[in-house]
């Protein structure tokens, strides 16, 4: 069986390709990560259209986590990425040294989907999004 998405904003197409889903408000133009019925930005009701979000973006913010909950492997980079065309998402930034001098604000990143199976004791497969440098 194919890996199931960890987060509700990850959707797998009928062709088996994962992508991020968002909501675009036709009243105010704001794009949010995930599904919404009403707009948290402008309060418009029932004017949200489901949209496919970009898998390209730029690094808005990050921290390097050295102490997390028990059992979580550290260090890792917790990143906030602004997706091209709208939507903001949090995730781990991979393939970059966890060192502030090696991480640049606004660096271009792409969204990749990888198996998170290692995180699950029972061996069920889960799919998570990660960021890697775009260049």
């Amino acid at each position, binding site marked *: 069986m194919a890996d*199931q998405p*960890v*987060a*509700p904003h990850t959707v797998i197409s009928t062709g088996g390709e994962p992508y991020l889903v968002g909501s675009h408000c036709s009243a105010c133009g*704001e794009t*949010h*990560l995930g599904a919404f019925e009403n707009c*948290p*930005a*402008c309060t418009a009701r029932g004017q949200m259209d489901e949209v496919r979000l970009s898998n390209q973006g730029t690094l*808005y*913010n*990050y*921290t*390097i*986590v*050295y*102490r*997390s*909950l028990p059992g*979580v*492997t*550290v260090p*890792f980079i*917790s*990143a*906030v990425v*602004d997706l091209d065309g709208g939507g*903001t*998402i*949090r*995730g*781990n930034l991979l393939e970059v040294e966890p060192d*502030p001098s090696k991480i640049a*604000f606004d660096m271009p990143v792409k969204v990749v989907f990888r198996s*998170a199976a290692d*995180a*699950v004791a029972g061996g069920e497969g*889960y799919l*998570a*999004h990660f960021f890697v440098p775009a260049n």
Partner: protein
Amino acid sequence: MSNDVYIVGIDMIKFGRFENEKAERLAAQATLMALDDCGLGIRDIQAIWAGSCNATMMGQRMLHYIGQTGVPVVNVTNACATGATAFREAWIAIKAGLYDTCLAVGAEKMGKGMLVPKNSQGTAIPTEGLLGSGVMPSVFAKMGMEHTRKHGTTFEQFARVSEKNHRHSTLNPKAMYQRETPLAMVMESEMIAYPLTKLMCSVNVDGAAAAVLMSEKKAKQSGLINRAVKVRASALASDPFTARNLVMQDVNTVTRLAAQNAYEMAELGPEDVNLIELHDCFATAEICHYENLGLCAEGEGGAYLDSGATQLGGQQPVNVSGGLLSKGHPLGATGIANIYEISQHLRGEAGARQVEGAKIGLTHVVGLGSACAVHLLEKA
């Protein structure tokens, strides 16, 4: 006669770790201390708001220890703004004219170490460390990094907040820790989430604080007006929409909204405030809140700290109690403990850490989710 509301009695227990205590027993201690502060008894209290994030029915259970008088009790939870929210609800009830003497109490029993967030996303497997990090140090590390991104604020500047507040705590016998931490010690302690080291994170401790609020008429009739502290403004805000709020919690905008509402209600400006107790749950937050509360211009938070303005003896001392960083942060108690600190200064009873001539003080707490409470207090 105005419908202003006054604090007539207020106190807090020394924050610490009380292995064998319950939140309601700590609340009872603080309540009796606040009643003693104004010479009243529990029978004088007409209604109670009790704040705690972890306890259940704490207000009623507290009365089992000090007297079950049958008054209405409302239990309040609003994350780190819980205590201040309980205080505000008591203020509202007196403002509304329903009661003239009310109690607000906040208490918390905390575990040691990092707070474990609930799985609010309802995902099938835990996401911490898989989809980034949502634990508190990470959230407030990002708050600091956003300030660095916009204004170039440095790790060293953030660390100086801890140096300052820990120094202040040496003058506060009710603080959990009363230890100086030189800048190098702060910067070299264990890195938790860059740029936050362990000494830049607040302490999870047990604690309780309580306040007796009274109408002006009753305070005058009871002869309690002379030592009373007037509530000039009480503001509470929830997080308005901002672009990244849903994935990177924004405690700046909610603070700005509550502060603006408080200043308008009091017809005061930031320049009128003589001392501030703000929510330094992590060192990064304090510098951001200088700007959010209007103490300095946008982007000048780091420089404002460097100028010495916010240390004891400076122009606008901030967190002379030692702050959450060293006094400790028992969630439900914090909002009332901050009001206690300001009240002591306005009464001229703050001892070695007294801010001389303090007339107006500001308290600020912010709970993630989010809730922000700002109070402006004045010497009666």
